[in-house]
């Protein structure tokens, strides 16, 4: 393992310190327990707090700022944060309209946020994101994983909260965006968790992991490497199938947002190539890509690979996607 690290135990705090220094206009870092808040505390709005294991940067701290999050709670690498972090963050950012937690659907994240919520002295609600459609039959599971679609949820909910909307409205929009979103990822290589010091999984030079999770969890199946268009075709297929199963497939032209997300080690050149093919394929199925995002937005450390996320737009979602946002990783209109 070769990484820019001093001591494995310090990587998180050193990195967070660098982040906070580089973006001191946007965020303030609090240590022990670790959480980050907006520099300018928002007033009279629902406070949006997210968090999760580290290693998915810019998720979540990179989305703190106007129009998105009020605070983020970073756990250790790939390990969900602990309730004290959420409690302190809530204490710091609550602004009289309650707290909304946005939580990726993993047992650890869910339980830690749940325990925090139970102890919270404020009105609160939680949006669970579960956009990963890699697991086909999710009836026998605890539900789908939350992956890159989380960024879309955070953007839209953050925008709505900025208008002064109440907690229930924010939760409702978050649930709606999550419901209308599906993602699937493919890994070409494994990631390496610094503390483990070795690749999470072994994969040969001719294999890919279809449906991989953002922690390097195994996916649908191990496959042979193929031309990009075939792989992308399968991903698009999976998303369309998921929409169909959930009765979301559009019967006539419908606007959609396409997010092509790099896992950390995939060149932008390849991400745009993926976008090119995916957009074409969705178009053949009544999905007109009218909003796009291409880049590293929900990463898995140094994994090579990418995920494709599609969100079915409606006027409300479009409005909140387009509205101004000013964070370290997403910025427009301001």
């Amino acid at each position, binding site marked *: 393992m070769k990484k820019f690290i001093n001591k494995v135990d310090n990587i998180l705090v050193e990195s967070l310190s660098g982040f906070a220094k580089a973006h001191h206009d946007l965020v303030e870092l609090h240590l022990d327990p670790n959480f980050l808040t907006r520099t300018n505390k928002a007033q009279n709005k629902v406070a949006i707090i997210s968090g999760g294991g580290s290693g998915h940067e810019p998720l979540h701290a990179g989305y703190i700022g106007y129009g998105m999050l009020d605070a983020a709670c970073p756990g250790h690498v790939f*390990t969900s944060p*602990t309730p004290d972090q959420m409690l302190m963050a809530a204490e710091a950012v609550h602004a009289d309209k309650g707290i909304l937690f946005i939580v990726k659907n993993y047992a*650890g994240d869910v339980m*830690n946020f749940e325990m925090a919520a139970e102890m919270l002295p404020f009105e609160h609600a939680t949006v669970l994101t579960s956009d990963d459609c890699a697991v*086909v*039959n999710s009836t026998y*599971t*605890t539900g789908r994983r939350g992956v890159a679609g989380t960024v879309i949820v955070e953007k839209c909910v953050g925008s709505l909260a900025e208008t002064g909307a109440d907690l229930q409205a924010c939760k409702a929009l978050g649930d709606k965006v999550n419901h209308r979103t599906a993602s699937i990822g493919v890994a070409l290589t494994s990631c390496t968790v610094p503390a483990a010091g070795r690749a999470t999984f072994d994969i040969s030079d001719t294999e890919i992991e279809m449906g991989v*999770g953002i922690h390097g969890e195994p996916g649908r199946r191990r496959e042979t490497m193929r031309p990009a268009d075939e792989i992308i075709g399968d991903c698009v297929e999976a998303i369309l199938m998921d929409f169909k199963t959930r009765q979301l497939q559009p019967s006539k032209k419908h606007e959609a947002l396409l997010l092509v997300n790099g896992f950390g080690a995939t060149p932008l050149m390849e991400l745009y190539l993926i976008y090119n093919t995916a957009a074409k394929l969705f178009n053949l199925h009544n999905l007109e890509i009218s909003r796009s995002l291409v880049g590293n937005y929900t990463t898995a450390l140094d994994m090579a690979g990418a995920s494709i996320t599609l969100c079915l737009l409606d006027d409300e979602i479009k409005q909140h996607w387009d509205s101004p946002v000013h964070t370290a990783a997403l910025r427009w209109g301001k």
Partner: protein
Amino acid sequence: MKTEFIIEAALAIQQTILANESTLESLDREIGDGDHYINMKRGATTVAEMQADLASLKPDEALNKIGLKLLSTIGGASGPLLASFFMSMAKVLKENGDESNLKIAAAFAGGVQAIIQRGKAGLGEKTMLDVLIPVSNEFVLQATQNNDIKLICAKLIQTAEQGMLSTKDLIATKGRAAGLGERAIGHIDPGAKSCQLMIETVCHLLLKP
């Protein structure tokens, strides 16, 4: 139960976790995200370092303090579950006392109940509960029969081992491995393994002459 023993057990558990680094790490790498060893090590080390703070406390207070500490230390799925275990066990001990094996068994069962409630899982879902539920049942049974602590420990070691091994052939329906479907088969659940190791460690301590 004595606080002294709790501390002794905490130190022994730390040793056990450290000694099983590669096992725990690779189990979670196979069907999880690879951090279970690191999480357990962080928790075990933190508790071991609480020695001085715990020494003067009553056993239930000590267990509660351990639970609270774990809650803000481990994170992940195992953090809130193990924390809930200790906090609930402490609560039962405080209410019922700890003067007999049966009372301790009841407290242990209370801890396991808290895990069930927090994680909304049951037997056969390929989690730590596949160790903890049978062990808890066996513990209560053995204590009810008023068996000697040596015998109880021998039984619990065996039950824990069986429970841990039973996870191998299961499909996971809770936790991170739930995403894997059939691919989880053939792999032991990491949380089941660490619980089995911890139970074995504590029982060995009690078996020591």
